[in-house]
């Protein structure tokens, strides 16, 4: 069967580390939360592993609302990872 897809976004230095602003991934079997996605995401490249290794310094949004590692994810979701914001 074709897996359920989710869209993953990276911003600022996380985008530079991963080398990508946006990637489609297949939701791993049994993955229910943002935290469950991390092993797959970190395996994509050394840059991914570096970007995601300290999640205390990273903020998460699911479908453009703030979440955290325990936020539930489902097919079609947009998951974003980014550093603490510095606008204004």
């Amino acid at each position, binding site marked *: 069967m074709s897996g359920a897809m989710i869209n993953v976004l990276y911003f600022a230095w996380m985008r530079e580390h991963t080398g990508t602003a946006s990637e489609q991934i297949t939701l791993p079997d049994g993955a229910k939360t943002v935290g469950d996605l991390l092993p797959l995401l970190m395996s994509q490249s050394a840059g991914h592993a570096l970007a995601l290794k300290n999640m205390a310094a990273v903020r998460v949004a699911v479908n453009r*609302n703030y979440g955290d590692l325990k936020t539930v994810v489902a097919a079609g979701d947009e998951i974003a990872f980014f550093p*603490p*914001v510095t*606008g204004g």
Partner: protein
Amino acid sequence: MAVRVQQEDFDVGVESRTLQGPAVGAIALFVGTVRSLRGDDSITAMTLEHYPGMTETEISRIEDEARSRWPLLEVRVVHRVGRLLAGEQIVMVAVSSAHRQAAFDAAQYIMDFLKTDAPFWKAEERGDQVDWVEARQSDSDAHAKWQLK
């Protein structure tokens, strides 16, 4: 929509006039600019990136929170993105109300939450060097103080 994210500069005078109305007695505005001098250091430019879609959602949510706390008439937020030179305007928050206390408080509240919650990131240029700005503890503190009120 009261929130605009744009590359172009804005005119504070024009924005201020659009907040006017028969019930308005007070307009509080805040303008953030690219500060060049940092003690012995100086920056020449910065580049702002954001999360389209989420930015507008977050700022609208902050506006709704402010409206639930104070009797506001108009609220306008303009935030620039892209590369901005030293001295350029970055952001404007403008609030109108019947009386000044509500306008002042709400403008400050919106700025404090925009600083911690709106998904913008700055990279600063010092000569050839470009560095992502780190989040400031003072901004988290400014955000936290509103929880106590």
